[in-house]
């Protein structure tokens, strides 16, 4: 899983429109996959740090908690219904969003498209 987040980090650097959309985003986001924790720290749209948990020392603004199978489906080029969007994961009971949800919503397009950078076919938008 950490390799996938490294791929997202690498791809984000060559995705100018996301760097522009995220230029005011400077937060740490927790992605919890089953029992594993990944802390994604953004600054000015760049994913500047990736840290594996568990950690009680890293503060985060909002969290997406899901499972590995759900994320695998989410990252397919054409996911099945419900797995096609992070709110879809929540709606079908395969994901949960905690923390400052308004911070997520204010940066929703940026965050969804960043998560979608690991899609098999990145032409399919998040």
């Amino acid at each position, binding site marked *: 899983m950490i390799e996938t987040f490294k791929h997202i980090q690498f791809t984000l650097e060559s995705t100018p429109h996301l760097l522009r959309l995220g230029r005011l985003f400077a937060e740490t986001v927790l992605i919890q996959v089953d029992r594993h924790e990944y802390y994604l720290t953004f600054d000015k749209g760049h994913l500047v740090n990736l840290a594996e948990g568990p950690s009680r020392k890293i503060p985060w603004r909002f969290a997406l908690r899901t499972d590995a199978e759900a994320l695998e489906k989410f990252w397919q*080029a*054409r*996911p099945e*219904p*419900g797995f*096609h*969007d*992070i*709110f*879809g994961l*929540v*709606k079908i009971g395969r994901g949960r969003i905690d923390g400052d*949800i*308004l911070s997520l*919503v*204010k940066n*929703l*397009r940026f965050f*969804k498209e960043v998560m979608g950078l690991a899609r098999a076919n990145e*032409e*399919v*938008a*998040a």
Partner: protein
Amino acid sequence: MSIEPITGRYLTVTVQGTPRRVYFEEAGQGRPVLCLHTAGADTRQWRHLLNDAEITASNRLIAFDMPWHGKSLPPEGFETEEYLLTTEAYIETVLAVIDGLGLDRPVLAGCSMGGRIALQLAALHGHKFSGFIAIEASDFQPAWYDIDWFHRPDAHGGEMGAALVSANISPYAPNAERWNTLWMFMQSGPGVFRGDLSFYTKDDSLIARLPNIDTSKTPVHIIVGAYDLTCTPEDAKRTADAIPGATLAVMDELGHFPMSEHPDGFRPFFADALARMPVTAAKAA
């Protein structure tokens, strides 16, 4: 270069005691089919069907922007008014447009909140229509989000609304049409999407009215996309089951804005729906 067959004009009607200047577009001839857009959007959602020569050869497709939406201005005094759409105001607006355009028992085709109000009209004013095509329509859903997110001084409600509703677009949608669909939400006036959602997520009066719909006089056909998180196929099926004689079609590869997000995928379902509606004599407007 190409010029499309769609024409646009303005109609002034009175709704809730005040004049409303309503923008409408139309194309085609024959049976009138009045098309209603979703929350937070406008008539442009219907552009592909209005440009479909085969459909418009025998159907006069008409779509209008609800007041506050698209090219229809909000009423005078809007600057101090909190926009909150109600079932009553929505019904009055649709009926006023039908009267204003002189439409004789049109087919009513509405999507999302337009589908919801189509079913309300089927229950309360069925005799004024010849049939109902209710797209992404169901009896009721409470919000799975906070509608106040979309009207704040510190963020762009349109951009947030577009990012949220992108969850309802199918991954099969062509990318260009996905973004054309989202653009309408990005352009929506401040507080308008929230005001539409207030009606859509809080008024559950339709549930008790569904059994009153008489499909022997006015058929009801419900269409739903499998990728619709807001009105799921389960929601649509529950609604169809509550209307005696209603029919249902599920579109496996479409979402909440089918006529706009994936016109080629939606077309056969809309053509099938039209074929289920009675053929009525058309009167000139």
